[in-house]
């Protein structure tokens, strides 16, 4: 105790040295603050980012089950529908005009909405898919449309790849009414994915 006092007293006798010390500490604190800030910027959030690439019934089911399950686990969920996943978000009841010939062709050949995709395996000219769907109904497994509605209710955010839309000639007017549906590109996905603890490509 007495020793400490002596030390303190010594310190007061050399104010110049102390000011130098304080400056040093200030600098260190500022450095640490900057480091903490960059760390918290880099720390992933409790978030799941899914790229819904596949237009197959089975894979789309998987991504929507994981998405809705993740919300239940308390995660923030973002889905990016791109390429073959894009047509799953078309609304079968909406009609649009003014497509060019390629757009019309793609429009006809790709599934129009979440009720239309086929299984990736054992489709057997549609028979396999029909069997799977009736089995799902019998076993009370939610359909793709139901899961999509549920995802909307739960606040799963959905982005659609603008480039896929353009490539396949889809128009925004023919897409489903999904809460907060928006259109974006790769940078939007990467920004979300970078801050997500889990990222999936399905």
């Amino acid at each position, binding site marked *: 105790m007495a020793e400490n006092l002596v030390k303190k007293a010594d310190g007061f006798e050399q104010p110049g040295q102390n000011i130098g010390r304080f400056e040093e500490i200030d600098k260190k604190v500022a450095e640490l603050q900057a480091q903490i800030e960059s760390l918290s910027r880099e720390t992933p959030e409790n978030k799941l980012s899914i790229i819904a690439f596949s237009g197959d019934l089975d894979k789309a089911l998987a991504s929507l089950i*994981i998405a*809705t399950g993740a919300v*239940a*686990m*308390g995660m923030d969920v973002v889905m990016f529908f791109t390429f073959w996943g894009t047509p799953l978000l078309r609304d079968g009841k909406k009609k649009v005009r003014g497509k060019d010939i390629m757009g019309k062709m793609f429009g006809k050949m790709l599934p129009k909405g979440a009720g239309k995709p086929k299984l990736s395996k054992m489709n057997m000219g549609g028979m396999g898919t029909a069997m799977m769907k009736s089995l799902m109904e019998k*076993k*009370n497994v*939610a359909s793709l449309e139901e899961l999509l509605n*549920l995802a909307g209710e*739960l606040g799963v955010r959905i982005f659609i790849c603008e480039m896929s839309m353009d490539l396949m000639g889809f128009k925004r007017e023919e897409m489903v009414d999904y809460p907060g549906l928006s259109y974006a590109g790769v940078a939007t996905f990467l920004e979300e994915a970078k801050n997500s603890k889990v990222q999936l490509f399905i």
Partner: protein
Amino acid sequence: MSEELRSDKVMDLKGLPCPMPVVKVSKGIKEVEIGQVVEAVTSDPGALADFPAWARTSGNEILKTEQSDGVIKFYIKRNA
């Protein structure tokens, strides 16, 4: 000997497969106060693994698990 658990809300989730039991219970538990207990009844065998995983992740607590005749009953205390 063991005290009978009292629940503040009962959820019948029988017949619902994955992901519905967990999705519904995560919604349902928000309807009771923190500290109250939800009794969730499911017929999904996967729930035996899924409910504890969900509880650990969401910060809630499974007080008791009962199994009988293909039905699983969870008593879940809302902690979060």
